[in-house]
């Protein structure tokens, strides 16, 4: 097996499964995934798929809560979404697109503690369809989604001089506006001020949603919208819903945004400290394509730096768990239980503690306790595959990247289970 076969699966996907074929041209295999249609996670029978259904169950939960009987639907909804999300990544042969989904979901973090009902729909509807489309379209879909509008409080932000503001005396909440600038688009490198944060907050006043009536989703509320033109980063934006759409398009196309996205992509797929040339190539792909994320994905595959073994990125818990599930060919039912595993390993699904999302550097994930927990979990899972041949498994999933030390340790192990544990807790298996 050529090293590029393993690198294509580990660096750009969630790792190889033993039965996966060896693509003749790993780069072409990845490029083909960028062009392929997006697969959908398999939700259980009867799961509320639309916002209308989700909000209806949330309303039921509000009723039972008032009756002192808890919220029976809440956890079931997000857990089913999270389980289907993980199961898809654990079983898809083509992992690159799923990695992109995970990357962009983290870039646009919403926390399920605050929006448990809508977070799964957010990933399915605002992230998945856009990961190889235009960034501008993803940004608009994300900011208008009820999950984001609620997570960063914009749904209740009111223009102080709007009709609703004048009547109620309520006012702005600048949380979403600040994070759009700081995290989602231009970053402080663009040199924005507190006045720009306030301006964007005013521009998107009225961006809210209607949970219990049409359209059961994004709703622009003119009565809460701050009247007048606003100036953001030296540009003037008109009053009304169109002003917000224009402002987001402006921010999406801003050179500082493209540099930020290029840096994050290169850090995610190449190295914790990515080579500047790699960042520049991704940035150029974004600029020349008008912000086409598919072009950026293809540019990542074309980076010579992405194909140099040994792999240097430490797998964060989610990538590690998925890679082990794939290597051990765990059945979907096990993959679904990974929701609990990730809680234990320190990266609970869709529950990053702040809007900046999960960190993307080895130092953040290599705490002693967290590494030991990986070993414990992997050893528990290895018990299920006790009949498997560890040397064959190492060859099938790590190929030439398996070190002789690892193969020797597996060969000397006292049981098949221990041999499997050693393969999936070796330093090379912790990498992607």
């Amino acid at each position, binding site marked *: 097996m050529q090293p590029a076969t393993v690198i294509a699966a580990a660096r750009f996907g969630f790792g190889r499964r033993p039965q996966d074929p060896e693509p003749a041209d790993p780069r072409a295999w990845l490029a083909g995934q960028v062009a392929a249609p997006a697969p959908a996670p398999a939700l259980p029978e009867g799961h509320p798929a639309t916002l209308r259904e989700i909000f209806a169950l949330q309303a039921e939960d509000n009723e039972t809560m008032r009756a002192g009987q808890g919220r029976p639907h809440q956890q079931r909804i997000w857990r089913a979404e999270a389980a289907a999300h993980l199961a898809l990544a654990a079983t898809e042969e083509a992992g690159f697109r799923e990695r992109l989904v995970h990357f962009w979901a983290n870039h646009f973090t919403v926390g399920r503690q605050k929006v448990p009902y809508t977070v799964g729909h957010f990933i399915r509807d605002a992230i998945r369809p856009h990961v190889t489309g235009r960034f501008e379209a993803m940004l608009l879909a994300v900011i208008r989604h009820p999950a984001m509008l609620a997570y960063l409080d914009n749904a209740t*932000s009111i223009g102080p001089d709007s009709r609703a503001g004048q009547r109620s005396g309520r006012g702005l*909440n600048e949380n979403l506006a600040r994070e759009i600038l700081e995290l989602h688009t231009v970053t402080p490198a663009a040199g924005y001020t507190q006045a720009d944060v306030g301006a964007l907050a005013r521009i998107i006043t009225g961006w809210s949603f209607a949970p219990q009536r049409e359209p059961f989703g994004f709703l622009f509320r003119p009565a809460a919208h701050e009247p007048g033109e606003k100036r953001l980063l030296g540009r003037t934006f008109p009053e009304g819903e169109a002003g917000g759409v224009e402002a987001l398009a402006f921010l999406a196309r801003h050179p500082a945004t493209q540099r930020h996205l290029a840096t994050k992509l290169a850090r995610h797929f190449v190295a914790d400290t990515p080579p500047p040339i790699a960042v520049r190539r991704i940035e150029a792909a974004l600029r020349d394509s008008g912000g086409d994320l598919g072009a950026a994905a293809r540019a990542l595959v074309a980076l010579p730096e992405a194909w140099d073994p040994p792999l240097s990125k430490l797998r964060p818990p989610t990538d590690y768990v998925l890679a082990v599930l794939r290597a051990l060919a765990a059945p979907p039912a096990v993959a679904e239980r990974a929701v609990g595993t990730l809680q234990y390993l320190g990266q609970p699904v869709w529950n990053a503690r*702040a809007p900046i999302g999960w960190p993307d550097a080895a130092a953040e994930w*290599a705490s*002693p306790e967290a590494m030991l*927990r990986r070993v414990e979990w992997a050893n528990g899972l290895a018990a299920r595959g006790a009949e498997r041949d560890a040397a064959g498994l190492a060859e099938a999933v790590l190929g030439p990247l398996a070190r002789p030390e690892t193969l020797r340790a597996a060969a000397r192990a006292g049981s098949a289970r221990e041999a499997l544990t050693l393969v999936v807790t070796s330093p090379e298996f912790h990498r992607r």
Partner: protein
Amino acid sequence: MVRPRRDAEAAGAGQARGAGGPGPAGGAHLPALGRRAALLGLSAALALPQARVAFAQAPGDARLVVVLLRGGMDGLHAVQPYGDAAFAGLRGPLALPQPGQEGGLLDLGGHFGLHPRLAALHAMFGAGEATIVHAVAGHWRTRSHFDAQDLLESGADQRLSSGWLNRALAAIPARQGAQPAGLSVGTDMPLLMRGATPVGNFAPRGSATPPPDLFARVAELNAADPVTGPAIAEGLRVRGYATGTLGEDAAIRPAQGGAFRALALAAGRLLSQPDGPRVAAFELSGWDTHAQQANRLNAPLSQLDEGLAALKESLGTHWRRTAVLVVTEFGRTVRVNGTAGTDHGTGGVAFLVGGAVAGGRVAGTWPGLAEAQLFQGRDLAPTSDLRSLAKGLLRDHLRLPGPAVARAFPGSEAVAPQGGLVRV
């Protein structure tokens, strides 16, 4: 603490014979199984009788705990300046009833009142064991959580790859046979504690573990790796130590009173050991209250209060020599925002509690809340520097020499350590 005496070399040799001879050791000097024993914390050092003697001669038995409150705690909500004429008007529904009224503040001497969820802290204040520093801020003026937290933990004008507490720990002499002086409690190792000085890491847990021998071989397989190697070796060492110290209670369940209380209990008990750590850090999130703040702050305030009480209880007699510094990355806006919350601001509150603290007072200079007194017309104006508090504790409580304090906070020459924080 009773600990079985063990001759580590004999133990290692016995294991080697029992396991059928050592294999290739990956280039290290020790034979594989000897190193395996060392990785498991079976080294002679833990059991040497002179460990206690060495401890008694160590520079001090002072304990320092740093608690990071992530998200930006609203200092004006936790410690309300009800005596300021502008306060009630600015804060509207977030201003609680004055002391003595139903659901009212807990009085701190006539001008400030503590949130009623902080009852244990209030009792410490009454016992002279808590100082509240108001209108305090770090040396940054960014309102980004992420930049501010990085600078809070780095202790420098830019993000460093090490934290100020780690650099401070470098000045504490290693005690023979004892644990590293620093301990990070929880599954994350915050930047505050990262750096060149070895620091322990322990999280309370409750699960079964693989056999020690398999763990040892995983450690061996990773030993040469610069990232996974040290992490696994250190994790095993601390677990071996912590289980010996805490026994079955190593499985303190997060469910009992919240994860933060479990962290505090574990920290207190490990800090109480004669050969245990002297400095610990852990964190509590949930303070970023942009909306419905009055309700949403209740839970984190209660968790903080219960955690501080648990720390005091588990430290026992060592509480007398303990100082706990509770800090957050910034305060929040003076005015309530449009959604009954507050946005990112500047000046806030730090708590300093512990039996070693010269407490019972609200420290700092109150800047006032009149329009002209606010920072940029929106935030509580900072009048104290967090570095000054931290430097004061490093100097007067841990008794670190001046150059060591300076290395912890590079570029802070103009910020003098604050004196009088602890009883000397």
